[in-house]
């Protein structure tokens, strides 16, 4: 039954892919049908995922092994089922949203391609997660990369998109190279593609393989310093796609790392420390960069980097604690990482979708041009607020629940582990707390600048609430955020993990509600129920304008200054003078902008080096026959010498 459902889901995803490409006419019905297939497929996928998750046992599918050369095989165990569930939930909501959203995009029949590729993309991710061996994992990994690349390139003629596309293409391909290297090294070690535990493999192969795979997955999931494609690709792609990529594709990379760590390797302490360090760096730097960002979607992208960092911290902690002989705490850390993956998928897709609605309504991504939308788009506002609360890890929402697990793991572990590790863990803990608090600041800024105050642009003033279909998808996600937050304890218990130190958030929720009602009751009965509206107090000014409001930039200014060593600015002056001595100023331009540290000190220098080599190599092809013949001559001589030498 589970098998059939899964296969049916795959078929429906396939139908969602083929349909809009086969019927090329630019009609809404085609796209709606495609998205309907995707939603149906997601629902069908969700059922087996839940069944397996609840313990109906691992499902093994017959492998496709053409002529015995290799095999493409699928298996759904609980880990896979968990990620399948994640994909299913987010995909269904995103597709629901996209039905309406894609109709408002430009591009004519290109939109068919968009929804087709969306289906293919989800299908590829499902198959990556369900893969039973490294080869099929890699196969669908590549397919996923290709499909997502097309999705990113939707608005291909925009300069920003093409830059994003190049970044994404390069980084994703780099990730492929590393994953491939890792898989090959693994094969060298074990001689098979199976995802089985490595036994008696030379440790250098295992370590090499781990490092390669880790790098590959880190690139794909946007771990600093490989993160740069995220803040380019997310803003450039349509919002549902950003949501899918950020919420799901990054998690597939996390899944990859987990799958290999859990099933294949026997991790060592320093592996965990490595993952923990990279995770912490990503978490802290990600949120700090997010604070500085005023492109709404780029900010969300940086926030994804932060959250992936948190997930990696969980994984690293799992390994550190596991190797330190604390299996129970390790499990808590792992649960935290997994749960945070799910939660991040939920609230980040919620945020991206609502951000998409906002951008659709205001035609800008710059939060400085928004404001006051809570009056014009109240439902979207409420949904975004839920997402913001969740991502800021505030109780009783789900973001808090998963971070709480990690905090518990950190706190408990420090009472038992050896001293040096303990101090290291403490530093990570402190940074983790910083991350969490900064992300709250970041989302106060986001929600405040976008939705509160006065509109800061005519577009923002004229915005309208989006249609119901564009609220339904985010609505489900928001509900899921609340439910998973409130019932986190119960959900974990049902899943078979009882954690005594974990507070029952539902109880806290009840208490909160009780206090709320109590306060309201007291206020309601004890004080007059009248209120009136009067202008905001402006310290004596006659009128109040949007220009006097606190802007997003202003909001993050204090943190900017505090973290100024991390935000280096670059100032560029170009002046021309009338005279030679530079005394009489003629004209000039000046520019001040944020230094893109990783881009300018890591990516571009490397790219320039390659370009330089390429320039040198290009000189070989100098279009002159004589030179070519000389190469041949010299090579022949060299070969002759080699021959004589080897004889």
């Amino acid at each position, binding site marked *: 039954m589970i098998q059939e459902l899964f296969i049916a889901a795959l078929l429906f995803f396939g139908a969602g892919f083929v349909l809009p490409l086969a019927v090329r006419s630019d009609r809404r019905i085609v796209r709606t049908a495609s998205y309907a297939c995707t939603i149906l497929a997601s629902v069908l996928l969700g059922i087996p995922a839940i069944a397996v998750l609840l313990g109906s046992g691992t499902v093994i599918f017959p492998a496709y092994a053409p002529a015995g050369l290799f095999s493409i095989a699928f298996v759904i165990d609980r880990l896979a089922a968990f990620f399948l569930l994640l994909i299913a939930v987010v995909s269904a909501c995103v597709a629901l949203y996209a039905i309406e959203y894609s109709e408002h995009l430009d591009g004519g029949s290109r939109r068919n391609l968009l929804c087709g590729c969306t289906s293919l993309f989800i299908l590829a991710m499902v198959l990556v997660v369900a893969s039973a061996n490294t080869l099929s994992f890699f196969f669908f990994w590549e397919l996923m990369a290709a499909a997502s690349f097309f999705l990113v390139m939707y608005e291909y003629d925009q300069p920003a998109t093409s830059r994003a596309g190049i970044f994404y293409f390069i980084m994703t391909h780099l990730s492929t190279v590393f994953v491939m290297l890792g898989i090959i090294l693994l094969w060298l070690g074990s001689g098979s593609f199976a995802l089985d535990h490595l036994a008696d493999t030379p440790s250098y192969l295992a370590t090499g393989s781990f490092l390669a795979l880790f790098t590959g997955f880190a690139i794909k999931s946007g771990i600093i310093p490989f993160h740069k494609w995220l803040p380019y690709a997310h803003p450039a792609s349509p919002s549902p796609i950003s949501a899918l990529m950020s919420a799901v594709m990054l998690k597939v990379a996390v899944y990859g790392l987990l799958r290999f760590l859990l099933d294949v390797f026997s991790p060592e302490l320093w592996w965990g420390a490595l993952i923990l360090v990279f995770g912490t760096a990503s978490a802290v730097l990600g949120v700090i960069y997010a604070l500085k960002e005023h492109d709404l979607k780029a900010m969300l992208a940086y926030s994804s980097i932060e959250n992936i960092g948190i997930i990696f911290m969980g994984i690293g902690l799992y390994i550190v604690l596991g190797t330190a002989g604390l299996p129970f705490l390790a499990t808590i850390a792992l649960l935290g990482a997994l749960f945070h993956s799910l939660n991040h998928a939920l609230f980040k897709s919620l945020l991206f979708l609502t951000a998409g609605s906002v951008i659709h309504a205001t035609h800008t991504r710059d939060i400085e041009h928004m404001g006051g939308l809570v009056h014009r788009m109240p439902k979207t506002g409420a949904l975004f607020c839920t997402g913001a609360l969740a991502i800021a890890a505030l109780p009783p929402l789900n973001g808090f629940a998963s971070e709480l697990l990690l905090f518990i793991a950190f706190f408990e572990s420090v009472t038992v582990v050896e001293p040096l590790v303990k101090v290291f863990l403490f530093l990570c803990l402190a940074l983790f707390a910083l991350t969490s608090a900064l992300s709250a600041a970041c989302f106060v800024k986001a929600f405040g600048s976008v939705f509160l105050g006065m509109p800061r642009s005519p577009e923002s003033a004229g915005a309208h609430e989006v249609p119901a279909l564009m609220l339904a998808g985010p609505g489900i996600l928001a509900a899921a955020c609340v439910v998973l937050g409130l019932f986190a304890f119960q959900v974990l218990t049902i899943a078979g993990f009882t954690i005594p130190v974990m507070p029952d958030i539902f109880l806290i929720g009840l208490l909160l509600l009780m206090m709320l009602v109590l306060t309201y009751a007291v206020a309601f009965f004890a004080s007059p129920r009248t209120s009136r509206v009067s202008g905001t107090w402006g310290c004596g000014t006659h009128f109040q304008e949007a220009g006097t409001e606190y802007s997003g930039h202003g909001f993050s200014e204090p943190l900017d200054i505090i973290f100024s060593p991390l935000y280096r600015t670059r100032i560029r002056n170009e002046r021309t003078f009338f005279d030679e001595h530079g005394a009489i100023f003629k004209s000039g331009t000046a520019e001040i902008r944020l230094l893109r540290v990783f881009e300018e000190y890591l990516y571009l220098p490397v790219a320039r080096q390659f370009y330089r080599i390429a320039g040198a190599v290009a000189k070989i092809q100098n279009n002159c026959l004589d030179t070519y013949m000389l190469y041949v001559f010299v090579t022949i001589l060299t070969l002759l010498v080699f021959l004589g030498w080897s*004889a």
Partner: protein
Amino acid sequence: MIESAFVAGLVRVLFVCIIITAVYIISARNLLSIVSVYAVQSLTLVVIALLLYLLEGAPVLIAIAAITFASKVLIIPYFIATIQEKIRIKRDIQFHFLSPTSSLFVSMGLMLLVYIVLERVMAATGDRDNLFFFGAVLGISLMLMGMMVTFSRKRALTKILGFLSMENGVLLFGLFVTELPFIIEFLIVIDLIILVLLTTILTVGLDSTLEDYHKRLHRFHLWEDEVEVR
């Protein structure tokens, strides 16, 4: 019957002749004389083939001598000389990478190198055939010397002669391996002739003066901007 040692001595003398012609081809500037020298070189090969026939008595050598004579002494030099008159180029005075003198030294070095390499390679086999070895050294040296012409001279016609000189090297080598089926030799020559004809025709496009060239090209829209019909 002529004494075989005498014949072998004669062959050696002719080998030296071939080397001298090759050197001349590398360093000469007058195109017509290069063509003549090439004809002489080919003729020397014909003579060598005939002498070897005297030595070994393989009838295939006579056939080879005949077709070599026909193709390389008569047809090809004649053809090239005709083309060369048509495109009105008499001299090729530009040298690339190598000047005439330095190319002489390089050729000496090449022969030495080839000798050492082949000596080592064949020493390992133990049962090396003296004549085969000798032919290999000379043949490959001749090829390399011919090749030097192809990259050190500017005119494509000279390059073709260099290539032909290389081919002579192969033939020289082949002469010592008489078991090669004649049909193969024959096909090779056919192949060579086609090659030379084609290359020469193509060369007309490259080596002819600009006016000739324009006449050929003004029919194509591709070059319309530059090529106004005069």
